[in-house]
């Protein structure tokens, strides 16, 4: 962001400089008349050449963006106030705010889905953050076998979401390897994904297992950029390890921290693929997340496009609020 501002400032500086040069130097001859290269619109001047080339470069993105980014938003906005079926969109019935009322007042599943999304996010973000940051801290010291461990923790990142989901489905099956291990160690077999009380937390664990290595890598590169001198200074001042961690390391990598935190938060709230593959939202809707419910209502169930659009709107407002507040909160005392 800073880069952007600096660059824009510089552009203005250059223009000012150009003007002053023109003012100071008396033009010896009037320039020959040629085709006008500039035009004015709303009091600002633009060059024809810039407009032509700029719009040409922008055209593909503009066309695709209008069709696939802007129109869906407009559609969502308008369908949210109607009753519509994805396979028969000819008949639209205007229902006003009924869809929103339904979500908040008449549909317990909406609340279940919202609760599941929130619980998942609240559990997975701290778990994964601590795991990734802890691993990065340990691996940032010069232990032997550093590179091996780094790769080991990164391996699950290479698996796709689908492979991870299907692998764990089979590992955690009632006759799977993990239940066999538990039984041979003297425990009783667990339901895992088929137990409504456990399923969501199993997905929390699997997500952290798969994702932590990725954030570890981001933290490691952040830690590499902390100047060594600060640590030496702290050591001279007699700071212990814990003090160094909280007063030097964490403040120094705060930008990395807030980036990871916000992307994780948004990513966690988007959870859909894993429950779709592993549990289809079950058992007993225990793993039905908000984005999954929105998808189901719109695409799978009949007559749900309007309701799905209304929930998508609520979801968008919710996500924007989360992103904005967390950004504000994290960047408030961001001094480094």
């Amino acid at each position, binding site marked *: 962001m800073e880069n952007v501002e600096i660059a824009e400032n510089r552009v203005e500086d250059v223009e000012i400089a150009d003007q002053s040069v023109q003012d100071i130097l008396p033009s010896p001859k009037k320039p020959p008349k040629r085709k006008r290269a500039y035009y004015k619109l709303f009091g600002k001047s633009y060059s024809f050449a810039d407009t032509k080339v700029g719009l040409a470069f922008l055209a593909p993105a503009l066309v695709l963006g209008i069709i696939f980014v802007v129109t869906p938003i407009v559609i969502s906005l308008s369908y949210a106030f109607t009753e519509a079926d994805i396979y028969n969109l000819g008949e639209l019935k205007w229902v006003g705010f009924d869809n929103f009322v339904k979500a908040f007042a008449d549909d317990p599943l909406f609340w279940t889905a919202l609760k599941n999304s929130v619980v998942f996010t609240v559990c997975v973000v701290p778990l994964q953050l601590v795991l990734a940051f802890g691993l990065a801290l340990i691996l940032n010291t010069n232990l032997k076998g550093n590179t091996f461990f780094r790769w080991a*923790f990164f*391996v699950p990142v290479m698996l796709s979401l689908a492979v991870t989901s299907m692998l764990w489905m089979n590992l955690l099956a009632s006759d799977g390897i993990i239940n066999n291990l538990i039984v041979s160690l003297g425990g009783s077999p667990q339901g895992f994904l088929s137990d409504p009380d456990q399923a969501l937390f199993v997905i929390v664990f699997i997500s952290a297992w798969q994702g932590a290595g990725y954030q570890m890598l981001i933290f490691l590169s952040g830690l590499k950029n902390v100047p060594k001198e600060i640590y030496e200074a702290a050591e001279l001042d007699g700071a212990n390890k814990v003090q160094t961690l909280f007063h030097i390391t964490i403040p120094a990598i705060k930008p990395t921290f807030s980036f990871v935190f916000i992307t994780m938060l948004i990513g966690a709230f988007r959870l859909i693929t894993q429950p779709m593959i592993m549990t289809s939202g079950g058992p007993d809707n225990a793993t039905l997340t908000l984005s999954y419910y929105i998808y189901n209502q719109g695409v799978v169930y009949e007559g749900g496009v309007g309701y799905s659009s209304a929930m998508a709107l609520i979801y968008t407002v919710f996500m924007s609020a989360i992103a904005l507040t967390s950004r504000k909160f994290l960047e408030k005392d961001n001094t480094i």
Partner: protein
Amino acid sequence: METAIRKHKKPITVQKVLTKSAFYLLLTVLCVIFLFPIFWMVMNSLKPHAQIYADMNSWKTFLPAFDFGAYGELFTMFTYFGRSILNSIFYCAVTIIGVLIVNSLAAYALSRFKFPGHKVLVTIIILLLMIPVETSIVPQVIILRNLGLLKGEARIIGYLLPGIVSPMYIFQFRAFFLGIPKELEEAAAIDGCGRLRTFFRVIAPCAKPVFATVAIFTFMGQWNEYVFANFMFASYESLKPLQVFLQLVNTHNPKDLACVLAALTFGTIPIAIVYIFFQRWIIEGVAFSGLK
């Protein structure tokens, strides 16, 4: 002088040895948790179905039998399995090329050319970053049907087109382009380089890190993509990308666990190769994304 040097060498204390061994213990335990599922998957893909269950109660479950039968079976039982990997690679390649060209050109236009509305567009893009993508699946399906892109094989285009333009990537490209000095382009212009050529010959080489980052994220996103493909290719077995096809193998009745594990292992090989070959770029890309 000598004492100063001595002081720099830290003495080995009991506490230090203890923390170090604690670290190793922790790392080893975590390592086992992180790696054993994958290790077990690969080992058991090399066994017949019945033996996987027979070995489950003993240490043999972590040993391979070097029986490649499941892999053969996979390709004979599921005719389109190989094709699905090729489909995935094809979808990734098209998306990466499209994403890089379309978004970088747009970002370049928004960072260098002044035309009516360019400031408004930048603001709109920043606002669009807030909107979660998955809520637009339903309206996108509606649009694709109106465009006739849900019919037959045209759905390939319908599947790929919505993923090309991304406010996020335009934003990333633009931030990087703004940092490139204008003098470079002015020099190119003096040398008689056209605008498009300047972009590909001068700007793009300067912006390699951002191109690499975007390419990598596009690749990871597209390779992992499941939800949209699952909908688009629900009844088109031969067009399914790998991730969706795997679910066919996984839910096939009667269940052949060896076959499933072979499919999961085999399906991971292409992306593992990509990670190993491009590890420097990937690590840089990941680091770059965190340093914004």
